[in-house]
């Protein structure tokens, strides 16, 4: 196998090397890639979409259709992780509870359980370890700031690097930090699985829905210009707003999916203690 691998690798590497001889040299401003299609984005994007960050303009508008599917790919991954890993029935019905005031652990066998409304008891796993105070406090302190930054990244994607993806990932990461610092149950209590599932669908739905809405308004699919009919702005600014709308959708979807993947991977779909 190793020899075969080496052979394939060398073969493909050699082919690629052979091809580089015809490449324009690195960073050549006169290469076809830099002269054929892309100049228009640089020249016109501000004028046509009112978005100075050309990457955002291309991402969400000129090639917005790609990005819609990119978000869909993320969504697929979330749904796939849910479908593959999520276990609804626990394998063994051994329940562990921790009495919060005293720190005693209760082990219940059989059908009985403590109602989840109880404030004094906390459901735990057999492998429960006490939380680390410093980590807890720091992360609790940090999470709001992370989230604020994430919102900034989403909202300011028009003018600076960033956008829905990066913001969404950071937003998701803030919840993941909670799950790592405390445990998965705490994180899920804050941000439930159901909400998560609905939000992942909602995010991509916003994106595709904006596109479809443009089509309903009589333009092409994803032609945000059509939004000018209902928004009190000009056609160029309508594009800018459309981009913002889809970026928000992307942010929601990516956040929800990141959390979903983490939850399922970290707990093998049992939604217990987590790591």
């Amino acid at each position, binding site marked *: 196998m190793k020899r075969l691998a080496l052979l394939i690798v060398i073969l493909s590497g050699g082919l690629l090397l052979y091809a580089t001889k015809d490449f324009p040299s690195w960073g050549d401003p006169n290469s076809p890639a830099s002269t054929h299609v892309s100049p228009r984005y640089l020249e016109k994007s501000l004028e046509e979409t009112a978005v100075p960050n050309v990457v955002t303009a291309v991402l969400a508008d000129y090639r917005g259709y790609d990005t819609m599917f990119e978000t869909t790919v993320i969504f697929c991954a979330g749904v796939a992780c849910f479908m593959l890993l999520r276990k609804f029935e626990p394998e063994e019905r051994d329940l562990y509870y921790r009495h919060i005031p005293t720190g005693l652990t209760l082990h219940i066998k059989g059908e009985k359980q403590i109602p989840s409304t109880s404030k004094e008891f906390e459901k735990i796993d057999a492998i429960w370890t006490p939380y680390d105070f410093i980590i807890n406090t720091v992360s609790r302190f940090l999470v709001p700031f992370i989230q604020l930054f994430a919102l900034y990244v989403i909202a300011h994607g028009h003018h600076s690097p*960033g*956008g829905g*993806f*990066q913001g969404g990932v950071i937003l998701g*990461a803030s919840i*993941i930090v909670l799950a*790592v610092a405390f445990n998965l149950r705490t994180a899920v209590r804050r941000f439930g699985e159901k909400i998560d599932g609905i939000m992942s669908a909602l995010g991509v739905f916003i994106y595709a829905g904006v596109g479809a809405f443009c089509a309903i308004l009589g333009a092409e699919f994803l032609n945000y210009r059509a939004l000018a009919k209902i928004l009190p702005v000009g056609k160029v600014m309508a594009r800018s707003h459309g981009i913002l709308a889809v970026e928000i959708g992307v942010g929601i979807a990516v956040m929800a999916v990141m959390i979903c993947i983490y939850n399922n*991977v970290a707990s093998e779909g049992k939604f217990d203690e987590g790591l």
Partner: protein
Amino acid sequence: MIWQLDLAILTLVIVCAIAAISVKDLLGTAILFGAYSFMMCLLWSIMAAVDVAFTEASVGAGVSTVFFVAAVFRTTRRTKD
């Protein structure tokens, strides 16, 4: 652009990549892989691809590594190669 820096990072990237696939501890692989992603992200920001670098920093070096570590915790650290 400083080509010496560029070259150094490129070398580091390759070193990280080779290390990541040859370390015999999967947790080590995870961390090395995170380092690799981060180097990559630096490389891209040098090349003025800020958006890509940002994404790679948050996705590749950040969330991917977390997933990776989570998966390693849920499976095994041991590997034969």
